[in-house]
């Protein structure tokens, strides 16, 4: 884990409100694993002052790191105005990522909205054929072309309004696909909004399929020091306990989280 200033190579709008940031950091690129994140300081001033957490969306040869992000507030707005050549302070890679040393299973990669960001990196790193990549969006104009972020993997799309691909939720599409693969050993790796993760929790239990999910919370330090980024743990039924998303996660086994009380 390092804290360093990096030079932006490009920062381009992929689809309205979604940007792809590329910067050079050989140290970070070499160390980064899918599911890990970085904390970015978007300005040198004091408002906003806290760093923003971003999933790593991929790495390129010669030490380039890719970050796909959605403009959601003041911090990401400032970041979206950065140009090639600008400098950024970056801290990372942080957290525990996806375990990709587990071959022999049919892997379902499931993404919802901007939750696709770390899953591009995962799909890049999982070097096997038995992968089905499913991604859900609200509308077709929110879909980003995988090629624009350097990904060759085929992706099955679901849209809430039916404007492209499967008409409905990505978790419904997943269930159809699971039934097709019933005879194989299956695992699900996912990242997306809370309702999607809750639906996955039901699917994972219903079909008894192991499932890992990447979580998102507000964070101040990213290092396990501030204890601000907690989620309720499912491990203690009669006692409340918490995981720190930055250190214990952001990737968790889906059964580790208390989805009813999150």
């Amino acid at each position, binding site marked *: 884990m390092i804290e360093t200033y990096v030079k932006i190579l490009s920062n381009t709008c992929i689809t309205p409100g979604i940007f792809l940031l590329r910067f050079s950091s050989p140290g970070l690129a070499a160390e980064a694993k899918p599911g890990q994140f970085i904390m970015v300081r978007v300005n040198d001033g*004091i408002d906003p*002052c806290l760093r923003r957490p971003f999933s790593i969306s991929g790495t390129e040869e010669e030490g380039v790191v890719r970050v796909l992000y959605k403009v959601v507030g003041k911090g990401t707005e400032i970041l979206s105005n950065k140009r090639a050549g600008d400098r950024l302070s970056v801290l990372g890679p942080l957290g525990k990522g996806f375990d990709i040393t587990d071959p022999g299973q049919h892997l379902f990669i499931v993404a919802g909205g901007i939750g696709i960001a770390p899953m591009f990196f995962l799909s890049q790193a999982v070097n096997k054929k038995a992968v089905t990549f499913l991604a859900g969006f609200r509308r077709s104009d929110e879909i980003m072309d995988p090629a624009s972020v350097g990904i060759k993997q085929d992706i099955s799309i679901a849209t809430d309004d039916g404007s492209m691909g499967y008409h409905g939720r990505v978790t419904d599409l997943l269930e159809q696909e699971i039934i097709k693969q019933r005879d194989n050993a299956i695992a699900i790796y996912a990242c997306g909004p809370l309702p999607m993760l809750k639906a996955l929790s039901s699917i994972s239990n219903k079909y008894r399929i192991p499932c890992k999910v990447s979580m998102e919370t*507000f964070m*101040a330090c990213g*290092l396990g*020091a*501030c204890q601000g*980024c907690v989620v309720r743990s499912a491990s203690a039924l009669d006692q409340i306990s918490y995981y720190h998303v930055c250190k214990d996660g952001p990737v968790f086994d889906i059964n580790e989280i208390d989805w009813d009380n999150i």
Partner: protein
Amino acid sequence: MTINPDISVLLSSLELKNPVMTASGTFGYGKEFETLFDLNRLGAIVVKGISLKPMKGNPPPRIVETPAGMLNAIGLANIGIEGFLKDKLPWLNTLNTEVIVNIYGHSINEYGELASAFKGVKGVSAIEVNISCPNVDKGGLVFGKDPEMSGRVTETVVKNTDKPVIVKLTPNVSDITQLAKAVEQAGAHALSVINTLTGMAVDINTRRPRLGNISGGLSGPAIKPVALYMVYQTARAVKIPVIGIGGILNAHDALEFMIAGASAVQVGTANFINPRATIEIIEGIGNYCIEKGINKIKDIVGSLITARQG
């Protein structure tokens, strides 16, 4: 011209190699920052507040950013004294810096028990008493807002320890100097000024508070002018050293506090923004001394020149 300024400071009997410490709750137990810079360079590490038994903390969301600062309501989540002594202190003792333990109790007795538990413990240089956390139900703040109770907690800790006692004061009172005087009277060796200011934030779309605890403690650059004035007031009201805390981001901020009367400073929220902030502040203080021809940093403490003095 000063080539090698002496930037060491003395807090009662506790000597620090420089005046820069990490504020409790913003630096974990130190190890979290281990790979980011040489921790041995710090004046002291003040660890996350420790209670007798482990505490889970408050329901999320626990933090929210506000203009030039942040609100937190962590709720003193910590591993408890046993976990600290077993899992954290041995590693901290391998460092060549002072370790200050921040303690938090639910009753006066508990403060006494905590202080006793650190009696004779090697590698703990001082005790910082948290009587000012705004984020727990029956919090230290019950003690910390009342001069008489603050004095009683202080007395109990002083009686039960062989180490210098620093008491951390809340700014959420009408006159901080009354607290300061009561705590000094009760035997405290130094004061930490200030803890966070109570505040809140609201999500206008959901109409819910932005923090699970509804209210939280405001920290960061937003509170610096308030903290600075309270340090100034406190330093004039007591004879014991005052440690300045509140929105310090850089050496300029730290020097403001020292000129206003702080013998040393703690850096908190800045550790999240720039993990190397403490080191840059130590270097900046050294450079300031060189530039201004100051041989000893101690000489600038409380050196504020006011109009009244001409």
